[in-house]
C-alpha cells in the first residue's frame, strides 16, 4: 500500500469540500448576524430621524407642551424638567458612586469589597419599574404627591451602580507604582487618593458619570409613577412633578392621533441624539483615560 498523497489531502474535494462549504455557510450566517444587528440600529435611528426631523423646529424646542389632548405645542418644559431631574440625580449618584468605588478599591478588604460589588451588580439588575415603586412608597406616599425630586432619587438609584462599577474598573487601572511612590514618601492614604488616584483616573470617572446620565435621561418608568401629573408651563421646582422628554414620548406614542405621533418622533430624535452623542463622548474619554494609564 502506498502512502496517501499529501498533496491530494489538501485539495478542495470530497470530504474537505463538504467541510469547507459548511464553514463558508456558517461564516456567512455569522456575518449576516452582525449585519442584522447593525441594520436594526440603523433602521431604528433612521426611522426616528426621518420621521422626527420634519417636526423639529425652534418653535418645538422652545414652546411648552400644549393643553392635554391638543397638539401644536413643543417640549421646552420637558427639556427643562428632564435637565433638572437628571442633574439632581447626578449630584446624588456621582459622588456616592465614586465614593463606593474608592471604598472597594482603596480601603476595603477583598472580603468586604466583593460583596459590595455583588450588591451593585444586583442593583444594576433591578428593573427600573421596581425602583420606581420603591421610591413611590418611600417618598410619594408620605408626601402625598408626586415630585420631580422623587423621580430624581429613583434616577440616582438607577445611575449609582453604573457610576460605581465604571469607577471601580478605572480606579483599579491606576498604576500601583504611583500609589506606592506616594506611600513611600509618607503621604497619607486620603491625600494620595485625592491628589493622585482620582486625578489619574479622572477621564474614566467622567465616563462612568456620562454613561450614567445617558442611561437615565431616557428612563420612563420612574417618570410614569413619580412625576407624571404635571402642571402647565415650564417648571423648575423639583418639589412638584416635572415634565420629562421620555414621558412626553410615552404619552404621545399611546395617543391615537397622527399629529401626536409626529411630535413623539421629534422628541425621540432630540433624546436619541443626546444619548448617542453622550455615549460617544464617554467612550472617547474612556479610551483616552486607559491610554493615559497605560492599560
Amino acid at each position, binding site marked *: 500500500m502506498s502512502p496517501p498523497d499529501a498533496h491530494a489531502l489538501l485539495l478542495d474535494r470530497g470530504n474537505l469540500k463538504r*467541510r469547507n462549504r459548511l464553514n463558508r455557510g*456558517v461564516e456567512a450566517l455569522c456575518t449576516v448576524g452582525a449585519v442584522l444587528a447593525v441594520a436594526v440600529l440603523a433602521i431604528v435611528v433612521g426611522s426616528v430621524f426621518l420621521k422626527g426631523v420634519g417636526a423639529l423646529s425652534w418653535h418645538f424646542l422652545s414652546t411648552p407642551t400644549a393643553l392635554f389632548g391638543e397638539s401644536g405645542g413643543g417640549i421646552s418644559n420637558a427639556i427643562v424638567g428632564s435637565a433638572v431631574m437628571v442633574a439632581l440625580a447626578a449630584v446624588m449618584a456621582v459622588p456616592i458612586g465614586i465614593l463606593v468605588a474608592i471604598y472597594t478599591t482603596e480601603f476595603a478588604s477583598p472580603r468586604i469589597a466583593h460583596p459590595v460589588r455583588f450588591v451593585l451588580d444586583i442593583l444594576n439588575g433591578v428593573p427600573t419599574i*421596581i425602583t420606581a415603586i420603591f421610591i413611590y412608597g418611600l417618598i410619594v406616599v408620605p408626601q402625598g404627591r408626586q415630585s420631580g425630586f422623587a423621580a430624581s432619587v429613583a434616577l440616582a438609584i438607577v445611575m449609582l451602580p453604573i457610576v460605581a462599577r465604571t469607577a471601580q474598573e478605572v480606579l483599579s487601572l491606576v498604576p500601583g507604582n504611583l500609589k506606592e511612590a506616594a506611600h513611600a514618601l509618607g503621604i497619607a492614604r486620603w491625600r494620595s487618593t485625592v491628589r493622585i488616584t482620582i486625578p489619574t483616573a479622572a477621564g474614566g470617572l467622567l465616563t462612568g458619570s456620562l454613561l450614567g446620565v445617558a442611561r437615565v435621561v431616557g428612563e420612563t418608568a420612574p417618570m410614569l409613577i413619580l412625576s407624571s401629573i404635571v402642571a402647565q408651563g415650564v417648571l423648575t421646582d423639583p418639589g412638584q412633578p416635572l415634565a420629562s422628554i421620555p414621558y412626553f414620548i410615552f404619552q404621545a406614542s399611546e395617543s391615537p392621533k397622527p399629529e401626536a405621533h409626529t411630535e413623539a418622533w421629534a422628541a425621540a430624535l432630540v433624546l436619541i441624539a443626546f444619548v448617542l452623542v453622550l455615549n460617544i463622548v464617554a467612550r472617547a474619554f474612556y479610551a483616552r483615560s486607559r491610554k493615559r494609564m497605560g492599560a
Partner: protein
Amino acid sequence: VEAGTLKNPVLRARPNRIDRIGDPLLRGLSGLAAAVAVAVIAGIAYEVIHLAWPAITKFGVGFLTTNDWNPNPLVQRFGAAPFLYGTVVTSFIAILFATPLSIAISIYLTELAPKRIRRPVATLVDMLAAIPTVILGLWGILVLGPFMRDTIEPALNSTLGFIPIFGGDPSAFGYLTAAVILTIMATPIITSVTREVFETVPGDLKEASYALGATRWEMVRQVVLPYSRSGIVGATILGLGRAIGEAIAVAQVIGGANLINASLFHTGGTLAAQIASQYQNSAGLQKASLAYLGLILLVFAVIVNVVARIIVQRGGLKDVDVTPTEAEAL
C-alpha cells in the same frame, strides 16, 4: 504600607492634623457610601413587600395561579397568572432569538471581522443597548407593529397556523411584537458578555485545532464554544434578566390584555408592563396587587442576576461587567 504602621518614630513623626482627620474621614465617608448601596437593596425589598402586603394577606400564594385581573369594585379579584405567562413567553422567545444571534455576532467579531472594523462594529452593537426603551416602544408601535401585522404574522399563520400559538388573527400589538422588541434589547447585553468570553479562549488551543486541519467553523465548534459554554449560559441568563424587567417598551406594544391567550399574535401582558400601565391610575387592593406583581418580578430579577454571575464567574471570567465600556478593549 501606610506610614502609620511603621515602628520607627522618625518616619511616623508629626502626621499633621489634617491627615489625622482626613484618613478616617475618607474611609468613613466611602464606607458609608457603600453602606448606602447595600441599604438601597434592602430598602427596595422592604418597601415592595410593604406596599404589596394587603394583596399578599388577601390572596396568598394562590395569587400566582389565579388567571384573572378584575378591578371592578364589586369583584376586586387579582391574580398574577396572565402576567407570569406573558413574561415567560415573551422573554423565552426573545432569548430564543437573541442567544444564537449574539453567538453569531460574537464569532464574527472575534474570528471573522477584519481587525480594523471589529471595534466600530462592536461599538455599534453596544449602541443598540443605549437606545432609550421608550423610543424602541414608539418604533414598535408605529413601525414594527404594522410590519408584524401585515407581513410576518400572516406568513407564520399561513404556514404554521395549525399550531395554536400561530393561530388567531394577526395584530400589531401582542406577545410576538413584544418578544421582537425584547430580542433587540437583549442582544447587545448577551453579545457584550459572549464576545468577552470568546476573547479569553487561549490562542494556542485555537492554533492547535487549526494545525489538526480544522476549518474555522470546526475550530469554533470544537474549541471556542465548549470553552465558553458557561459564559454563554451566564450571558443568556443576564439577557433574560433584561427581558423580564422591561416595563415601558413592552407596555407600549403588548396591548394590555388581562387574560392568558394561546395565540402569540394576541394582546397580553407581562408583570413589568402591567405595573407600568396601571400603577399610577389605581388604588387600594389593585395597587397592592400591582406591587405584589412587582415583588414577584423583583424575586425573578435577583435570582436571575445572582445565578448568571455565579455561572459566568465559575466559567473562568473573574468579573463580568455589563457597563458598555468593553468595546474599548478590542
